């Protein structure tokens, strides 16, 4: 039976070392306390876990398979690459795991209205789906820029009965969608749950989202051992807020032989300043507070949050989950980046060698796997979390590759 992990972190105050916490207006503190209590009770309640597990198997289609990328591995001539196929989940990404977990929790708390933010639209679609399934009202905030570049997901959300509210403030992307979702939540907190989509925000979100996503790593650990008789040498995942990465890293955190690698969005290159690679540019990304949590934040010397750039809307965010900040400080995980160009190239390579069209977000992880495999021996193994599929990105890719 599935179980939600019992982890050493965060502490009771939601701290991951110096990171995390609860930096929100007082109006929201009772709601966070209620959420902490409800989650604490639910995570050990066999009835809740059984319901969550039932949905993951009968509705999401879990366990998601592990696929050996034979042609890709052979063409590179280095390490063997395995893909954890979150792209095969219902709705096409890992986001549905957390959306269902939180929607069940919201229902348990008696909340009837759900607000969510979305960047690439995958979390918005996951949330709209969970709300349709459970009969909850659903409002999704999405930046104007993202609405334009993720049209198919906007239409899917609408078909699923969600209201998509366009956000035209600030950089008109994920960061601003989160601002609006928080403002909505503050104003409607009596009947509304904020279904945050990544390991971000005030405690308990970074912990709770990680736990709901930890099913990825738990499955992958069993699957890779079954496939190769041992643990992989390297695990690679893309990191925007960092939920798919935390989801796969968590089950391996105490396996010292397994190297954990997070891949941020290098955009047009670090020197260009147009990127979202927080850990790659520590002059710009300094410890700060954004959206209720303390972590690395891309900001001006004056402490104003900077606009970021990535070809993938899901990685286009100026901060990163607090647990990633700690894993980086502790050197338990390493962080690197892939540029827009490298992600686009990886997108095409995986499509042609394996018949799998990855999401542009996940293509960043594939890009790093391609680089790294060539420096490794054929008896070594890389496990990539293929967090989503690329159907939503066809417009972006067709434009970028001038395929029209």
């Amino acid at each position, binding site marked *: 039976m599935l179980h939600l992990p019992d982890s050493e972190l965060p502490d009771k105050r939601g701290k991951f070392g110096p990171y995390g916490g609860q930096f929100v207006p007082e109006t929201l503190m009772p709601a966070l306390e209620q959420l902490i209590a409800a989650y604490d009770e639910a995570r050990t309640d066999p009835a809740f876990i059984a319901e969550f597990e039932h949905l993951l198997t009968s509705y999401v289609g879990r366990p998601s398979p592990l696929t050996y990328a034979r042609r890709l591995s052979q063409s590179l001539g280095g390490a063997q690459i395995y893909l954890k196929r979150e792209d095969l989940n219902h709705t096409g990404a890992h986001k549905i795991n957390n959306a269902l977990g939180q929607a069940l929790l919201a229902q348990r708390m008696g909340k009837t209205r759900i607000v969510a933010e979305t960047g690439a639209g995958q979390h918005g679609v996951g949330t709209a789906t969970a709300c349709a399934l459970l009969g909850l009202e659903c409002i999704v905030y999405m930046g104007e820029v993202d609405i334009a570049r993720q049209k198919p997901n906007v239409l899917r959300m609408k078909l699923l009965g969600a209201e998509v509210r366009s956000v035209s403030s600030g950089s008109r992307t994920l960061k601003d969608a989160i601002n609006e979702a928080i403002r909505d939540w*503050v104003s409607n*907190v009596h009947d509304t749950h904020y279904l945050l989509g990544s390991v971000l925000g005030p405690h308990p979100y970074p912990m709770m989202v990680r736990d709901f996503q930890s099913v990825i790593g738990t499955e992958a650990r069993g699957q890779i051992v079954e496939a190769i008789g041992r643990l992989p040498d390297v695990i690679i995942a893309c990191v925007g807020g960092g939920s798919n990465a935390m989801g796969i890293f968590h089950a391996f955190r105490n396996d010292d032989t397994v190297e954990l690698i997070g891949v941020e969005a290098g955009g047009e290159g670090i020197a260009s300043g147009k990127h979202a690679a927080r850990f790659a540019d520590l002059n710009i990304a300094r410890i700060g507070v954004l959206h209720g949590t303390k972590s690395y934040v891309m900001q001006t010397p004056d402490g104003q949050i900077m606009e970021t750039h990535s070809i993938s809307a899901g990685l286009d965010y100026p901060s990163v989950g607090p647990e990633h900040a700690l894993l980086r400080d502790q050197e338990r995980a390493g962080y690197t980046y892939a540029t827009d160009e490298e992600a686009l190239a990886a997108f095409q390579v995986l499509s042609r060698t394996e018949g799998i069209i990855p999401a542009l977000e996940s293509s960043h992880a594939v890009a790093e796997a391609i680089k790294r495999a060539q420096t490794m021996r054929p008896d070594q193994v890389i496990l990539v979390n293929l967090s989503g599929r690329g159907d939503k990105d066809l417009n972006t890719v067709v434009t970028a590759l001038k395929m029209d």
Partner: protein
Amino acid sequence: MTGKERIATAFEHALRRQSAALMPYFTLGYPDTVQSLAVIEAIAPYCDMLELGVPFSDPIADGPTIQRSTQRALEAGTTAAGCLAMVRQLRTNGITTPIMLMGYMNPILAFGMAEFVRAAATAGVDGLIVPDLPPEESAELKAHAAATGLAYIYFLAPTSNAHRIALVTEQADDFIYMVSVAGVTGARSRVTAGLDRFVTEVRTLAQIPVAVGFGISSAEQAATVGAFADGVIVGSALINAYDSAESDPVAAVGRFVQTLHHALRKANAD
């Protein structure tokens, strides 16, 4: 006198004349440095205290009006350091009204918490209001504020339960900022029902003044709230008054604050 003492004295004066203290809010640097200073100087004679906002790019507790003002201030080049320089300028120009500085946590962290508090006190700030810093996270900043004699303010809201009220009243020692509605800043047409009872309950527990803000946009509402609160905070309505003025926006905001001032005094006289 320390900032804490000056804030306490402002409430005592208001109590003695038996009307609520008036604390209008204005965004520093909106629409630019010169104009915002002119507005603040124009309203100061009618205010018991001033709440001056340090712009932040992502103000999650603020509604559209104040968001727009802070965005504009940032576009005009306003920085945290620039805000402190404006306060210094106000003091040089002879404005003696106690000043509460309102700002979000990230620019304060970027400045350096200890450095910011020291620089604020030196510039002539009397206290700090940080809307994204609940009691759980406030210990360090509050300690810095205490060391320099600055007031440090905690919030309560209509959502606050007994446990939150106990937590906040235990830590607060200057005044409590009571948010009148579950929501963000911005003009609203009515005062929340039951607010008077809530304010009275909190004041009894806390034994310090309770100032009410968020949503108060007219002289009538100010008078209604002033009848039961120790302080009345009006923000977005000042920005709206500035924006909607047909001519001389500085004078328009001045006149608006004057009506608030009279409404509070008159409410008492009635």
